[in-house]
């Protein structure tokens, strides 16, 4: 596989990859360009790959029709809290499962892993009832608490455990001789060394929270509480049909920042995710 490729083979491979790229790249391009086209041009024939004229008022309407800034903030702060919280909870649990001997550790680990087996859709009905009783429906609490402590963080715990298992035991023993207790060993030795694993946990936790859709539409009912994915679907006309250009403008505003961060830090993203201990 690693043999030198002939020039003809190279041309073929580049060509193949460029064709395959179309469905991956074109939608994003189409989203951005269509969002600045006047409404009359977005379904024009032949399709305008590059906008012929621009209409920026669409972006104004995004903010006029809904409290979009508020919704943006909701999504951002929820995702940030969930990411931070998950990093804390999962690194602690992952560390304990990997490195501390305590009674019933294996049984408890099995119970926790059950969370991987149970799609959040299975428990959505009782969770709704529980949060309803707690008076937390139409607040952001369900979107914050469940991912941090519940099933979604189990995968993160698993990834952290897989990492901590590989940490040389001698380092911890040296730290004990040096006078550190459990918590300090965790904070000063194990955690700093776990940066790559933590980074991948942070990335997929953030994306998971940012993309959450079922939970917001179940738990939230007022526009100023909405998160972005939910808000995007609300730009509809009187008949319930989508206002395409405004939806696309809002979608662009939602997708682009993450996309830009990704392109800047793509190495960390891609290698971080390959790093999740899923290599088998």
């Amino acid at each position, binding site marked *: 596989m690693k043999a030198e490729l002939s020039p003809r083979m190279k041309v073929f491979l580049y060509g193949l990859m460029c064709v395959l790229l179309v469905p991956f790249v074109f939608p994003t391009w189409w989203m951005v360009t269509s969002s600045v086209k006047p409404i009359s041009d977005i379904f024009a024939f032949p399709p305008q790959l590059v906008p012929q004229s621009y209409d920026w008022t669409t972006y104004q309407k995004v903010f006029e029709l809904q409290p979009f800034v508020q919704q943006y903030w909701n999504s951002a702060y929820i995702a940030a809290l969930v990411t931070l919280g998950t990093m804390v909870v999962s690194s602690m649990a992952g560390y304990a499962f990997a490195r501390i001997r305590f009674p019933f550790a294996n049984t408890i680990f099995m119970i926790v892993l059950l969370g991987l087996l149970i799609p959040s859709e299975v428990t959505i009905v009782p969770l709704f009832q529980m949060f309803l009783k707690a008076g937390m429906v139409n607040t952001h609490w369900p979107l914050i608490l469940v991912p941090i402590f519940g099933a979604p963080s189990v995968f993160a715990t698993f990834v952290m455990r897989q990492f901590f298992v590989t940490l040389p035991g001698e380092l911890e023993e*040296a730290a*004990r*001789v*040096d*006078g550190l207790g459990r918590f300090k060993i965790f904070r000063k*030795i194990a955690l700093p060394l776990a940066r790559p694993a933590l980074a991948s946990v942070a990335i997929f936790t953030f994306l998971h929270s940012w993309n959450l859709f079922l939970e917001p539409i179940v738990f939230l009912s007022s526009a100023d509480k909405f998160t972005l994915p939910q808000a995007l679907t609300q730009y509809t006309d009187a008949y319930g049909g989508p206002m395409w250009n405004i939806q696309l403008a809002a979608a662009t505003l939602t997708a682009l920042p993450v996309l830009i961060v990704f392109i800047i830090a793509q190495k960390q993203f891609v290698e971080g995710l390959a790093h999740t201990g899923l290599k088998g």
Partner: protein
Amino acid sequence: MAEVTLSRVRKSYGAVDIIHGVDLGISDGEFVVLVGPSGCGKSTLLRMIAGLETITGGDIRIGGRVVNDLDPKDRDIAMVFQNYALYPHMTVAVNMGFSLEHRGTGKAEIAERVKWAADILGLTHLLDRYPRQLSGGQRQRVAMGRAIVRDPQVFLFDEPLSNLDAKLRVVMRGEIKSLHQKLKTTTIYVTHDQVEAMTMADKIVVLNGGRVEQIGAPLDLYDRPANQFVAGFIGSPSMNFLTGTITAEGFAAPGIVLPLPEAAHELRDRKAVYGIRPEHFALDDNGVPAEIVLVEPMGSETQVTMKLGETQVTGVFRERVSLSPGAIIRVRPDLASIHLFAADGGERLN
């Protein structure tokens, strides 16, 4: 500085006994080497002294204080690990000062102590590097530096040289030894390499199967091993053993009769094991015949594998031997260096 005393120290995992009641006294400033084949419990014993393993029974005292239930950090010991256990995310200086940081030592004093240790070990120019930027020997030195900055009562070494190549091992062996002569701190050193044990120790403890086989000065162990295990373990190439019976004519082994010292005659008619080190054979026309199997010239000496009767043994000669396999030479065992062990149990007889 302190003495270390182990009395009837035991360790078991469930029903399996790992250490069977070890008694050991180490005086202040002594360099003691625990040696034995892998799985003999030497590392476990060291880790029990360090406090990294719990002890099942008996007492461990450091400087007169029973430390059985104390945390490693409260035992005033420092340890050098097999893989050095340097913190990868800290520079050499931080690595070395780390333990002081957690003992509430002031910044200025930490810097001073680190500088002092770095000077002794020749690490001063490496203080800002990270462990991954260091060679094996340098890492080893940092690991020692981390141990000495604290000026602990006892140094513990767990096979610290096993990851170095042969040449560097000899160099570091000398460095550890001279460091000990400089600091005079009580040191307990674990190794499976009997050469390390012989060259470094004030006192060697030979362990086997969780039991102490013999304790003594290196040359005492070499000259008068207490049993067949120690005899075979100490010395390289290792001692030859022939089984047979002590008779009036000498030691009757299969196919040959070997000479015995006068004193051995009182053991007449006993079944025994005849032990002789390779270097205690001499070429002598009046000696016993031996058939050459293999000749390995080393330059300074020649190692010859040969058959004494039916038993294959090794001899090391100062002379150069240039004979082919199958030829017969005559060798004479040095009567003063013959060891006799009981055929059952291997205890020393003479």
